[in-house]
């Protein structure tokens, strides 16, 4: 233990002595570490952002879509819905949602507009990371309301005149028996010029909306663990075909990662470039430490004559390099955090994200690890040189 502390003490004082010489090389290492950390950090954050977007668009891995289409004969909506709900239950799928696209005539201040409305179950909010700007996603107790609850998008909300959600605003559904729906939340527009859209719980839909509004047979989305997605697809397919022999049954993975992780190649390339940059930093450092060690042959001889073992000399030179690059690494990571967390960069990378992801710890650790590894690598060669110093020749005049 004393040995290690002594070696560390010695390495630190050596660094102080040679600081000007080492500083330049270390700036190189710090910058490479900063570059690596920034790239990994930005990559992770951008990926996070893209994944969030993709999951909103197409579901989380693995999302199975179950669709039935009439083929020749007629499909009864109610029985399809019942069968789909039974499937989710039978295969114990934790997150499943009915998905039914329809048009509902909502009464806006400027008239009745048939509005694209998605009929879903409560789980849909989690499954699609529905991005709420006001209010909240459907809660359990929303199912028991008498008046149906709806979630509208920003366009819809605006057209209503931005009513304060705390005043429990409502909107009329215009039909034979008009229904008043309560607006419980506002969802972010999918794109800037989005049309008004709404979402309504399946339970309410069945009770309150005239059946003839239906245009398409209901479908279902199941969020399942990726490793059972494949067998489940087969099983559900077979199951539903048996129940609806005259229908065409489609069960397939519909999430963005259905054909493998689309971000992996990008990240690999970017990481590779960063690694290369770091390697250049390492070569620069190696160069400097070689010069330094040659200059110090005499010094090493003197130290050995005062009892430094060759192991200690090796470890000392190595440790100097590692301590130096670790410090450089800390500086580099801090620089990277400053860059990544700067408002301008955040805006570029995380545009449209509901919450800004924190600086990825993984990136910081990779940066520090890489710095230390570079130090060890750049220290190894001079350490071997230092050990081979012939003491007698080194101290002779």
């Amino acid at each position, binding site marked *: 233990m004393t040995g290690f502390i*002594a070696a560390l003490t010695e390495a630190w004082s050596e660094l102080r*002595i040679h600081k000007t010489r080492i500083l330049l090389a270390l700036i190189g290492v710090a910058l490479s570490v900063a570059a690596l950390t920034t790239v990994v950090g930005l990559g992770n954050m951008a990926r996070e952002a893209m994944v969030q977007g993709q999951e909103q668009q197409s579901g989380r891995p693995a999302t199975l879509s179950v669709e039935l289409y009439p083929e020749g004969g007629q499909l009864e909506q109610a029985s399809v819905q019942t069968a789909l709900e039974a499937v989710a239950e039978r295969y114990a799928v934790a997150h499943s949602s009915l998905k039914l696209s329809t048009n509902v005539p909502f009464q806006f201040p400027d008239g009745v507009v048939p509005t694209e409305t998605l009929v879903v179950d409560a789980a849909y909010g989690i499954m699609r990371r529905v991005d709420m700007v006001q209010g909240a996603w459907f809660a359990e107790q929303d199912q028991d309301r008498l008046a149906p609850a709806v979630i509208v998008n920003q366009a819809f909300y605006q057209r209503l005149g931005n009513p304060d959600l705390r005043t429990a605003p409502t909107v009329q559904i215009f039909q034979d028996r008009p229904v008043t729906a309560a607006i419980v939340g506002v969802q972010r527009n999918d794109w800037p010029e989005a049309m008004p859209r709404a979402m309504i719980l399946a339970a309410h839909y069945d009770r309150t909306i005239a059946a003839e509004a239906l245009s398409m047979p209901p479908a279902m989305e199941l969020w399942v663990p990726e490793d059972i997605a494949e067998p489940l697809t087969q099983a559900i397919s077979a199951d539903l075909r048996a129940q609806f022999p005259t229908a065409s049954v489609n069960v397939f993975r519909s999430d963005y990662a259905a054909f493998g992780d689309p971000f992996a190649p990008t990240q690999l390339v970017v990481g590779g470039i960063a690694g290369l940059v770091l390697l250049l930093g390492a070569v620069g450092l190696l160069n400097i430490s070689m010069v330094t060690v040659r200059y110090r042959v005499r010094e090493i001889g003197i130290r050995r*004559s005062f*009892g430094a073992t060759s192991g200690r000399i090796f470890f000392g030179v190595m440790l100097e390099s590692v301590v130096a690059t670790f410090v450089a690494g800390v500086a580099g990571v801090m620089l990277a955090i400053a860059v990544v967390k700067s408002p301008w960069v955040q805006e570029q990378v995380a545009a449209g994200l509901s919450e800004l992801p924190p600086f990825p710890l993984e990136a910081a650790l990779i940066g520090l690890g890489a710095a230390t590894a570079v130090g060890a690598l750049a220290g190894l060669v001079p350490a071997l040189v230092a050990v081979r110093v012939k003491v007698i020749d080194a101290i002779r005049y």
Partner: protein
Amino acid sequence: MISPQPNPADEPLVELNQVTRTVRLSDDQSLDILRGVDLSIRAGDHLSIVGRSGSGKSTLLNILGLLDLPSAGEMRFAGQPVASMSEKRRAVARGASVGFIFQQFNLLPGRTALENVMTPLLYARGRQFWRREQLAAEMLDRVGLADRMREKPHKLSGGEQQRVAIARALVRSPKLILADEPTGALDVETGQAVMALLDGVALESGAALVTITHDPTVAGLAHRHFRLQDGRLHVGVLAA
């Protein structure tokens, strides 16, 4: 301290028996620097070794200080045959029991006098390591440099630098002090003052002192005198 078995007071600190040092020259010849050297050094001994340039004085000193090994013959350090000591053990024994003083001082450039004197304590354990600053400061005080501790070598005179080197050699209280022409780079007066200091401190600590010198006055401080000639060590009288 070094040997596992107790080291009685009468046992020599270093013992050379028919030690030979041969080096290979580039043209496939070999040169016998030392031939059949017999020498025994005990605690408190003060030895001087004289000899022409190239006679092998430094080679002998390096062997005594475990920096070099005999090519043939037997050598014991603190009772232990050096042939059986690993490189690491020799380094540890050197750190604990030997203090070197060089003609060119060999202070570490860029480091203060205090840091230089602390250097050997970096390779020590326990109290010596943890209290290195205090020990080094005390040692510098003893060589009369209490007020120059924060100075770097290039700001010190030759005599002062050699006093720093003496403090460094003595800071771990070695049993054996090896001085290779310690006054060689100093003027006569400064050299004598430095030598008197070294001799005094060595005497105080009871360590053995081996001094290589060209200067008869310096050699005169020693109790036993040797001359190296043609690779052989002769017990000598002072007159060169």
